[in-house]
């Protein structure tokens, strides 16, 4: 395990990328999804020979600068003080981790070594700054009930804009609305997006012509009753 200088539970978003640990692990339960309790009680042994018990195993979704990622089979160990990403587990998934003097890169060899996540080198430690997935951050920072209320009324009033909904309540425009304390919907409303989408996107064409006139695309319109400005 890497040598750690600070031992307080820091709230920073840094996860340590560690080749010396066998599993991803973290201490905050709110970040996990699909939590299960392991059948046999397991322990994690740290460098100072103390052991910490594993409470749950689950997935952690987070956002890096390169997009949304999901770490699977992350151990929830409440008593540890750092968040660790296991190089061994990443490699087992078929990815590759490259360490350089600038930072480290998780790459996918199956997709021309596309960089999936990037870590920075702080002193001699490799860390990855991540943003926890929105929904989880929301649930951690707001009280659940008011979000559920806002969600419910958003749906009842035909997916009305949340800003508008709050305005209606503050302005006392109608009777019967509860008091919304929470700020936002807990996640992007899928139905709203579908509602605005009148047409599915066109599939991209696999076949691309290689020389002129191989395919001629044509879209004829008309005839029209209206004459043009020129009188034709």
């Amino acid at each position, binding site marked *: 395990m890497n040598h750690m200088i600070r031992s307080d539970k820091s709230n920073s978003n840094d996860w340590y990328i560690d080749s010396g640990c066998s599993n991803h692990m973290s201490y905050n339960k709110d970040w996990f999804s699909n939590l299960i309790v392991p059948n046999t009680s397991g322990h994690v042994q740290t460098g100072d020979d103390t052991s910490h018990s594993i409470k749950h195993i689950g997935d952690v979704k987070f956002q890096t600068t390169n997009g949304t990622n999901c770490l699977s089979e992350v151990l929830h160990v409440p008593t540890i003080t750092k968040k660790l990403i296991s190089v061994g587990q990443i490699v087992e998934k078929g990815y590759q981790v490259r360490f350089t003097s600038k930072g480290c890169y998780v790459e996918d060899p199956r997709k021309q070594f596309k960089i999936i996540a990037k870590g920075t080198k702080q002193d001699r430690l490799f860390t990855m700054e991540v943003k926890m997935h929105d929904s989880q951050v929301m649930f951690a920072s707001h009280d659940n009930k008011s979000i559920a209320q806002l969600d*419910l009324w958003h*749906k*009842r*009033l*035909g*997916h*009305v804009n949340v800003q*508008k909904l709050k*305005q*209606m309540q503050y*302005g006392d*425009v*109608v*009777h*019967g*609305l509860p008091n919304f304390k929470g700020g936002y919907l807990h996640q992007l*409303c*899928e*139905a*709203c997006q*579908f*509602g*605005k989408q*009148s047409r599915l996107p066109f599939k991209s064409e696999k076949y691309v012509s290689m020389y002129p006139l191989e395919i001629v695309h044509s879209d004829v319109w008309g005839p029209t009753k*209206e004459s043009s400005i020129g009188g034709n």
Partner: protein
Amino acid sequence: MKSKADVFYNFKKFKNQVENECNRHIKVLRPDGGGEYFSHEFSNYLNDCGVRHQFTCRYTTQQNGVAERKNRHIVEIARAMLNEMNLPLYFWVDVVYTTVYIINRCQIASVHLKTPEEAWSGRKPNLSHLKIFGCVCMCMF
């Protein structure tokens, strides 16, 4: 309304109804350039009632922004509600009725600090009876 020919009859009905309800008169009618608004019967009726007829160019929906935007507003909400509950398309009519009911009871930009319902009837609407469209309900005997 089965065909566009019914527009005249329905417009008369609408005009009488709304003028009776709010004690005001329709001053201007601004339809799109569709043929249903151009019959002699219709024009004569409008002249008799002193309603100005501001028609827009045909096939130029851009000039009829208010009506077209409202269509889109309704359809977007209706589609979202259908999708939310994964309802089949034959609920289309119900969902559009519900949408209009809801829009009339929400604050919208064109009516300041009021709901359309309040602007029309002078009463503040109560929303506490609303449920999510398409949610499961049980009959109690």
